[in-house]
Structure formats: structure tokens, C-alpha cells
């Protein structure tokens, strides 16, 4: 095993659900020691949501949870009792970074907000992430990323203009925020190295999520235009869309960005006469007849195997890609080449497939070494080995109900 970028970095991770755990996953996958503080009475919501191994629910059977928590240690801690909060403070003293994603005010009620912990550990770096930030009239609005995706404008701009919004799938902004959060955390660590100063980061998932709507927000700010859903139409490419292929619900996405690509598309589909048709010769012509064109292309693509069509179009220089389902992704030769899928042996689920690290680093590639932890799997290890509790003290904590 090669060098690990975050070797020696210590993270007290009070976060749960999506953004927080995905952010600390980068640290864990690159060598940091990340302790997830969990509760048996209020477990991470993702432990309760599918997909479950074998379709059978259970706190240690959700791959939704597991996928975001590789290489982490799980400490089961009851922050509702003073003994539990004392362990949390000791964990903070041990840590370089504290992460949390509760509804604003929760950490303060436990005496674990930045103001409190920076008194006992002045150079701590702490990140809080919640739906809408720590301040403001809607700060305490609890929720999941689906709501932030709605608030943040993404649903309005996904789907067909004559229909209700239809996506994007899932808690979309949950997957915009983590790389931003990671960049800010590492920048804060660098700042601490240079200056000795810690800091507090307040990441609103709404504000961070809006970063990917920049052009539409500016278009409204300066031109007064309100973006809405446009199916698959594109202002600069035509034809542009998903076209049906052989098989049930199989599609290939095609983007024709030049006249050359248009002629190449006609050749591949065996319709050279379209390339001669003056209606379609220019971008503006194709745009004017886009409905007709989409119908014609759809008839021509219908007999193609989607992967064959993608390969043929790519060979002719036309941007094209199969609308891949997850079952396709698990067979995708490029992802295989990238080592995207990694099998790890989980304490209860056994060997299970995880998504790999989203980028490749030449010297410190990072590694998925350990599956996600079972709830509380490392409680004793963390208390004894990392925080220096004696066996008697651990027993006392357990007796006080602090380890639930």
C-alpha cells in the first residue's frame, strides 16, 4: 500500500445522512482516522433506508449508508447523558476536524457548538452543514436533499415544458456539496498549518447547491429571463436528445454540435439523403424542424442496439452515449478500467460492491480498505485506543448508558 494523503489526520464526525458523511469519506478514503459518532436510539437515517442486502432491512444492512462510510470507525455514543457528552469533548480534544450536520442549535444544546469547543480546543476546524445554513429565519428548517433541490431551483429546470417537474433523481444537492466542503476543509487545514488558527465553516446546502445554477441565476439577474425545463433541447446543439433503441426502454443520447457531425450522423444511420436535405443543412434549419427531425431519427435508431449505435457514432466523431442504467454501469468497461467498483467485506452484509473514489491520484490514490462499520462496531477501540479510557472507565460509561 502506498502513501496516504491524510495519514495522521483525526476527524470527529458527528454528521449524518448525506453531505457530511460523503465529505468525511474523502478524508477516510485517503488515510485519515474518521470516527463517526452514532446513536443506537437515533441511528443515521440512511441505515433505515434501502437498498438493503438481500432486501432485508436492518441497521447494518443498508448500502445507502455503507456507500458513504467506508474506512470509518463507528462510536456509539449517547449525547443525551452528561457522560456521553464528556466522551464527545474528549473526542474533540483528540481531533483536528469536527464535522456535524444536525439541525442548527442541536450541537449547542449539547455544549458542542463551535463557540464551546473552540474554548477547549482553540485551533479546531469545524464544519457544520445543514439545509439552509446556521443563521437566518429558515435555519431550523429540517429536511433532506430533495427539498434543497426543490428550493434550489433544480426541479423547476428538469423535465418537459408541458409537464410537471420530473427530476433530477434524488437528493440532488447532497451530491453537489461534498466536493466543495472537502475543498474548504483542506484549505482550512492548510490555513491552520500556516497561521495556527482554526476556524468555523457554515455550509448551507442551498447556497452551495446554487453554485451549479450560476448561468441561469445571472440570466435572471441581468436579463430577467426565468429558466424552466426544456426536455432535452439545447441552445447550441441540434439534434440533441435521447433516441430510442432496440430493447425495452433503451436509449442513446446524441448531441450534434456542428454540420460535420450532422452529416456523420446521417451516414451512420444509413440516411445520406437527410444530409442533402436543405431543410436540415444548417443549425437554424435543423432547429426550425426539430420536432420532425427527432421523429425521423427516432425511427432510424429504433433498430439499433444502443451500445452498437454509441460505438458507431463515436467512431464517426459524433458525441453519443448510452443512457446507462445502473446494471449497465456495473458492466461498463471504462468504469472497470478505472476500478470504479470495489468489493469490501462488511461485518454483516459480507462481500458487497461499493462505488470507488471519483478521481485518480497518481501517487496517493487512496483506497477503500474497510467496509462501512456496523453501528458501534468500534466503540471500545475508539475509547481505549484513541481516547485512552481504561477498561473500568469504559464499563462505567456503559453502565451510565453513555454508549447507546
Amino acid at each position, binding site marked *: 500500500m502506498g502513501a496516504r494523503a491524510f495519514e495522521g489526520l483525526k476527524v470527529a464526525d458527528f454528521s449524518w445522512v448525506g453531505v457530511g458523511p460523503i465529505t468525511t469519506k474523502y478524508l477516510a478514503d485517503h488515510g485519515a482516522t474518521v470516527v463517526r459518532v452514532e446513536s443506537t436510539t437515533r441511528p443515521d437515517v440512511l441505515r433505515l433506508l434501502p437498498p438493503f442486502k438481500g432486501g432485508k432491512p436492518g441497521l447494518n444492512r443498508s448500502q445507502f449508508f455503507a456507500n458513504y462510510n467506508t474506512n470509518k470507525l463507528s462510536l456509539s455514543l449517547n449525547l443525551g447523558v452528561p457522560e456521553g457528552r464528556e466522551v464527545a469533548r474528549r473526542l474533540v480534544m483528540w481531533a483536528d476536524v469536527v464535522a456535524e450536520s444536525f439541525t442548527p442549535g442541536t450541537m449547542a444544546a449539547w455544549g458542542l457548538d463551535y463557540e464551546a469547543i473552540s474554548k477547549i480546543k482553540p485551533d479546531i476546524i469545524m464544519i457544520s452543514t445543514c439545509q439552509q445554513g446556521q443563521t437566518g429565519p429558515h435555519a431550523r428548517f429540517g429536511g433532506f436533499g430533495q427539498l434543497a433541490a426543490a428550493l434550489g431551483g433544480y426541479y423547476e429546470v428538469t423535465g418537459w415544458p408541458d409537464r410537471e417537474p420530473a427530476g433530477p433523481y434524488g437528493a440532488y444537492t447532497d451530491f453537489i456539496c461534498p466536493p466543495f466542503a472537502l475543498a474548504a476543509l483542506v484549505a482550512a487545514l492548510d490555513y491552520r498549518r500556516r497561521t495556527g488558527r482554526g476556524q468555523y465553516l457554515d455550509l448551507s446546502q442551498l447556497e452551495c447547491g446554487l453554485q451549479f445554477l450560476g448561468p441561469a441565476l445571472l440570466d435572471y439577474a441581468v436579463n430577467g429571463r426565468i429558466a424552466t425545463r426544456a426536455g432535452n433541447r439545447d441552445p447550441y446543439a441540434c439534434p440533441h436528445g435521447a433516441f430510442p433503441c432496440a430493447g425495452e426502454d433503451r436509449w442513446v443520447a446524441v448531441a450534434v454540435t456542428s454540420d460535420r457531425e450532422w452529416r456523420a450522423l446521417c451516414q451512420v444511420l444509413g440516411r445520406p439523403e437527410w444530409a442533402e436535405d436543405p431543410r436540415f443543412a444548417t443549425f437554424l434549419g435543423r432547429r426550425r424542424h426539430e420536432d420532425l427531425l427527432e421523429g425521423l431519427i427516432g425511427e432510424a435508431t429504433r433498430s439499433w442496439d444502443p451500445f452498437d449505435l454509441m460505438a458507431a457514432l463515436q467512431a464517426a466523431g459524433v458525441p453519443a*452515449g448510452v443512457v446507462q442504467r445502473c446494471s449497465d454501469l456495473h458492466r461498463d468497461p471504462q468504469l472497470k478500467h478505472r476500478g470504479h467498483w470495489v468489493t469490501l467485506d462488511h461485518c454483516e452484509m459480507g462481500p458487497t460492491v461499493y462505488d470507488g473514489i471519483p478521481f485518480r491520484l497518481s501517487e496517493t490514490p487512496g483506497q477503500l480498505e474497510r467496509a462501512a462499520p456496523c453501528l458501534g462496531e468500534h466503540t471500545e477501540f475508539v475509547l481505549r485506543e484513541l481516547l485512552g479510557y481504561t477498561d473500568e472507565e469504559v464499563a462505567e460509561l456503559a453502565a451510565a448508558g453513555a454508549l447507546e
Partner: protein
Amino acid sequence: MDESLLGPYRVLDLTDERGWVCGRILADLGADVIKVEPPGGDPGRRIGPFYGDVPHPDRSLYFWAFNLNKRGITLNLETEDGRGLFRRLAALSDFVVESFDPGYLDGLGLGFGELSRLNPRLILVSISAFGQDGPYAHYRATDIVGMAMGGMMAISGDPDRPPVRVSVPQAWLHAGAQAAAGAMVAHYYRQAAGRGQHVDVSMQQAVIWTLMNETPFPLPDFYGFDLTRAGGRRRTGRLTIRQIYPCRDGYVCLLILGGGPGAAFIRGLLALLEEAGVAPDWFREVDWENWDLATPRRYPTAQEELEALEAVVADFCRQKTKAELYEAALKYGILLAPVNTVADLFENPQLAARGFWVEVDHPELGTRVTYPGPFVQGNLNPVRIRRRPPLVGEHNEEVYGGLLGLSRADLAQLRAAGAI
């Protein structure tokens, strides 16, 4: 001392729209990001919308959105003089970010091997559609191809129509953000080891990381089937749950979860329906506290029970506006949010209260423009908006003069030679 988080570091940003976000994130955190554009400007400057709908390389809002906080120079990598200048700049930089087709920089003698010989601390970040090598490495991709190949389209859109992408392009933005994360992992290691490395980012993998809990579904030891698109509904396990509800002036998103995590929210929803007097009698017979989505209490199947509940909610929502429903959601703690338009966002009281929007001067247009503000806030203001996006070649003199010590006469010659 008021130094920014990444104040000491310099980034050469060679990207077009496929990689802009990476440099934008580093610039927001305080790095000196120099956009290196071909003479005439980054081709991405031709992407609209434009300020006042007038197409011009210095008026592209698409460019503005992701190049705020950067400086800009022109440099022609296709000339030997241009490459010479680039080598000198790379020797003085901490990061180079690029989004060319894989192999392009190698072909110019500016690949990672070459650059790290010149500057062993340098981190090279390469953003591409599928990665630098592998069977699809040379496939051509645009946003829609990335959303398709990364699995997002298959689960977005209405079931009776083709799968859809997000109408505001997203795929390259995910790649750019992952690139910034990868760059910072490499940066942290460099501080310990003294060496840079090559960060190779695949847009396809970046999109896969947006699929939430979807990827394990088809595996035989999970469910053995793929999730499919369900329009304004979402699929979870074997149920599909309405998520988008029409209301008087648009739509709201409302989540019915049930079970442990959902009990508090369903209680809020029921309180609201009771207060409005629209809760049907059977509502009172259900033990909602212990109600979960999988076990019907009133109807033969979970799906039917869910739909009966949804019908009541849908009728209620249709009578109200987005704002009324959101207000009720805040009051009762319901998992409901308005499907906001960009116009709604500019009126959003929470964003206003947090000072999210930032006015940026564009003196050459005689105007100030409202930009979306920092992606993260904090006690030391980790993100600062310091300068508007660069005009084409705006900082040529500043950078070539200040960093490389070139005179105006040198610059004039280089310009004549087509190098800048």
C-alpha cells in the same frame, strides 16, 4: 493578518467550460487563479446567455458564472514561444488545471512528466469525460452524454417519454467540483511530502456519485432490478411515492417517509390537514407514530394506502400557493419545499438574511451585477468575491510583466508572433 485560505498558491487554469468550476472553487478560497486562454479568448466565452443578449466574449454569463475571482491572460500553446512562456509560468505555479482531450498536453511536450520535471511540487489536474485512459478515453462527450453515461438520465424524467437531463448543464460541473476536491487531497499530501502529483478526473464517475442510493439496486444480492424514471414520483424499494404536487402557482416538493425518521414529519402534516379540516375519518384510526411505508394499516397494499394519503395531500396543495404551503411547512415541520424558479430565489428571505447575493462591479459595462454568493460561510469568511471575471487578455501585462519580468516591447513581439 487577513490572509485568505489559499492565499499563497497560484493556479494556471487552462480549462474551457468542461473544467471551469475547479479553478473557481480554488479562486473562491483565495488562490491566485490565472485563466490561460487561447488568443481571442476561451471558446467557452461563446456560450450564452449573454449580458443584454448581445453575444460577445466579454459578455457571456455562462463564462462569468464560473470564472469570477480569476485573472485572465492569453497564451497560444500551439506555438513554441507560447509553450516557452507556459513552462516559465508553470515553474512558478502550484496547480495546473486542464480539460483538453486526453493526450493533448503530452503531445505538446507539456504532460505531467514534463511539468513535474520542471516543477516537482506542481499538481496537474486533468478533467476529461471518461478519464485519461481506457476504452472510452477518446469518446467525445457533451453534458447530455455525461448525464447519460453516468446513469442520471435513466432515472430522471417521465416514464412515458425519453429520459431527460437537467436543462441547465450539470455534468461537467460535477467533474470540475470533484477535480477541486482531488486537487486539495493532492495539495495536503504535497505539504507533507514536497511532491505534486497527477489528478485524473472522469466526468462519468463524477455523475455516478450523484446517483444517491441507486447503484446497488440491480446487484443480485440487493434487489436485482434497476430503478426507472418515475416523473414527479420517486421509487424506494418496491413503492413509488409522489414527490411533486401541483399548487395554485406552481409546484411543491413534499416527502412522505413514514417509519422512525418520518414520524415527526407525518405528525406535522397530519396536524396541518386536521387544522384545515380536510383530514378524512380513517386518518384517526391509523397509528401514524408507528406507521411505515411498507406495512399498510387501512388498505390492502402499501401502495394503495400511500396513494390514498397522497390524494388528500394533493387536494389540499391545489388550493394553496407555494408561499402558503412553505409557511405551513416551516410552522409544522413538514418535509415540504416550494419548487422554486430562479426568480423565487432572488426573493427568498433566507438567502437575503444571510447576505448570499453579491453585487459585483462591471465598470466597462457601467453596471453592477448580482451574483450567487459564497458556497460556504464562516467566522473567517472563507470565500470572498474579490474580482469580476476577466476580460480576454486583461491581465497580460500584469502577469507577464509582474511574474516573468517581460517588458511591453517583449509583449508586443510575442503578440506579433501569435504567442499571446
